[in-house]
């Protein structure tokens, strides 16, 4: 397995644990010397872990449901409760995993830069939705906590902007793609934590 395309085709089987020992050994050998494929595998594992962590179904507790049900009749303008925040995050992460899967699958057929664009779109959507969830909950936070969270978020966003600008200047650089992906992951993880602070 010397070709990056073979590795990308093997990622679904790797995640499913279906690779034979010989193929696995070949894949490991390739990964040991190919940073780009390691990044692909890490991203696929990350997305897979997030997807597996999602609840199979999200049902409100009975006592919550009595309060929520009457509100379903009218148009809900925004997520108003932590439960909905979690639901939104779950949906967004599912969309993200789908986008990432599509991106990875497309790359196995045709390694085009559009795959990364789609992956990034998924990250952007996730970050935007989680940002909305955070903004809904920030009013419940102590001013000091809010300031601390947002100061850190600024640092994360600055790093993301720097990485993105570098990728704009050198769009075929796979290492920079990996840096941008890592920056998005950090932003999403931090927004998840920030939203959780609002719920607690």
């Amino acid at each position, binding site marked *: 397995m010397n070709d990056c395309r073979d590795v990308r085709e093997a990622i679904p089987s790797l995640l499913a644990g279906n690779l034979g020992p010989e193929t696995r050994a070949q894949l490991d050998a390739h990964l040991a010397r190919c940073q780009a494929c390691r990044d692909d595998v890490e991203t696929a594992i990350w997305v897979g872990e997030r997807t597996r962590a999602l609840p199979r179904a999200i049902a409100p507790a009975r006592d919550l449901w009595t309060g929520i049900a009457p509100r379903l009749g009218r148009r809900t303008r925004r997520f108003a409760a932590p439960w909905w925040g979690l639901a939104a995050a779950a949906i967004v992460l599912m969309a993200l995993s789908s986008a990432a899967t599509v991106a990875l699958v497309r790359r196995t057929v045709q390694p085009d830069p559009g795959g990364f664009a789609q992956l990034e779109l998924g990250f952007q959507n996730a970050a935007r939705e989680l940002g909305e969830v955070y903004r809904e909950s920030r009013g419940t936070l*102590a001013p000091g*906590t809010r300031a601390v969270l947002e*100061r*850190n978020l600024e640092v*994360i966003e600055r790093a993301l902007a720097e990485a993105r600008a570098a990728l704009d200047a050198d769009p075929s650089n796979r290492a920079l793609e990996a840096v941008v992906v*890592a920056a998005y992951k*950090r932003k999403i993880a931090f927004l998840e934590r920030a939203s959780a602070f609002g719920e607690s």
Partner: protein
Amino acid sequence: MIGRQTTAAIAVLTIAGAASAAGQDRQLGFPADPDVALRVYNLVGTTRITGWDRDSIEVRATVPPRGGSLFGGGSRRAAKLGVDGQNPSFTGPPATLDVRVPRGARIWVKSGTADVIVAEIRGEIEVSSVTGAVTLTGSPRVAAIETIDGNVSITGNATVVRARTGAGAVTISGARGDVVVATVQGKVEIVSNELLSGRVETVSGSVEVRTAVPLDGQLEVETHDGPVEITLPRELDARFDLSTIKGAPIATHFSGDVLRQHPRSARFAVGKKSGAGRGASIVVRTFSGAITVRSRSNPSGG
């Protein structure tokens, strides 16, 4: 599952604790299994948790007037205690909780600005804080610390360490097992005689690691612009994969402290066994941070 008796006990103790609003010191005690699951809540002040060789939990607390009320109780298997009704903007003297628990306890602590000090626990400890500092000494199976701005200090041979901060600094000394640290701006310092598995991720915090890594061990550091400095022993079998995109040339000091500089990336192996495909894996990636890797006869000795 907390039963009626347990709920009643909590209620009684909550009421008893409410009397502490007069500013009296309070003391609670109840029996507990060696691996009791304990939840501790104290948002403001100081929480000190110490393991002991008794099958009980003891709490000594000082809660100031209008500073909340002490509650506590539960079953032998699961209990919770803390200060309820705290106002984050309260400016009076802070509450202090001094808790003794069986050493094998599994403890979860919720803090806001309260400092959390944990010692002599062999079980599991999980702390969530906003700006409170977390200081842990001992050898717990699991130490999972999350704080936004508080500093984290972990000293001892914890098996599994997870530490996450925003701007808070993380200092880990003596951990040998599996260590994962993530910060946004916080400085990270890890010192160990031998670290089996370490991963550090930060945006702009500096990272300093001084440790040996065994043959099948791994150390991975990723930063955006935080500088990385790794010190390893002279006797070393390892494969290195170091890369920066916009940072200064990578500096490596091996073979008698001779400085070698690598413009953007460096992949090399040191030690006899690394030539056979064995050896520790040392990976550092950064966008614009400086990378320095060096060897010393005693890396953890400073």
